[in-house]
């Protein structure tokens, strides 16, 4: 498939294998994983792109106040000079958000809607 210039190949058995290996000794983490991946509960994993002029642009992580907005920030996806993007996990409080950054976070649907509205 890759030779045929397909960008991404998704193999169900491969995904199941990787998910299953998380279970061993970690049944609660597995439960969380399933909830997030299958999105069957009101909890969701979401992303938000910082656009030019967004209220998030130029602010530090601590200034955003994710906890007060009931959002669990996992990390920030930031483009590198070579065009690739790097996932910066759990950035420091003084990490300054730039336009083009993508925030990846977990939260309940209502909190996510509220967060996106506030950050626009």
């Amino acid at each position, binding site marked *: 498939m890759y030779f045929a210039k397909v960008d*991404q190949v*998704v*193999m*169900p*058995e*491969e*995904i*199941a*294998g*990787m*998910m*299953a*290996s*998380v*279970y*061993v*000794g*970690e*049944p*609660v*983490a*597995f*439960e*969380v*994983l*399933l909830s*997030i*991946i*299958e*999105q069957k509960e009101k*909890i969701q*994993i*979401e*992303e938000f*792109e910082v656009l030019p002029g967004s209220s998030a642009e130029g602010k530090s992580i601590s200034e955003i106040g994710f*906890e*007060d907005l*009931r*959002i*669990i*920030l*996992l*990390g920030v*996806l930031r483009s590198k000079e070579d065009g690739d*993007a790097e*996932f910066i*996990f*759990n950035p420091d*409080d003084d990490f300054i958000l730039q336009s083009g950054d*993508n*925030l*990846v976070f*977990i*939260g*309940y649907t209502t*909190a996510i809607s509220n967060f996106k509205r506030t950050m626009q």
Partner: protein
Amino acid sequence: MKVKGNIFIFGYGSFGKHLYKHLSKLENKIKIVVDTQMDDDTSSCKAEVVRINIKQNEDILSLGIDPKKDIIYCAMNKTANNLFLVLTLKTLYHDINIIAISNSYENARKLKYAGATNVIDLYEATSRRFVNILTKPAVTKAVDEIIYKENDLKMAEIVLPKDSSVDQKLLSEFDFKSHGIVLIAIIDKEQGDELRFVDNRVDHKLDAGDTLVVVAKEDDFEKFVKYLKGQKNG
């Protein structure tokens, strides 16, 4: 990675082979169990392979499964066989941990109803991933980094030990971030067995026996586990 009992993988078709590939990276002993009625090719498998008739209770009992420690993966290619196996195992061992692989929502529902502890719905997870690649590329990248890629980032759980460093503290009082930890969810024993995502609406007092689900870099996680084991006033 916490190591408990043995892993039994029933079936060595396409599902079973992929499961083995990933599970073989763990330290647990793995046994592949193949039904004598099936023609699963195990010639390249490095694990111990046992051939039994899964319809015979004596054959299953002969495997020496320890239901308190071992984990069972029902990964035969035919759902009907997995369903039969789940029902049999639950009859023989009431409290056993069974993870079943399903190829549809309907089969996932049946397997769960039959007693599987957890069901991985192949096509639910895959179709969700297809959608995410298109609509949530950053989420896809983050999930890849945390779950699928072999790097130092991981999702893991910690059961708080007795007299841990955070014992009797409120969640809001403890700075997980300074330890490189992102706390996702908690089972607060005082409030039952329900898994709750941590979203700052409700504070929790941390006690021995509480389970924390976190995302962290491997090094930070190990340091955090050691930190927790330190005496509260020590």
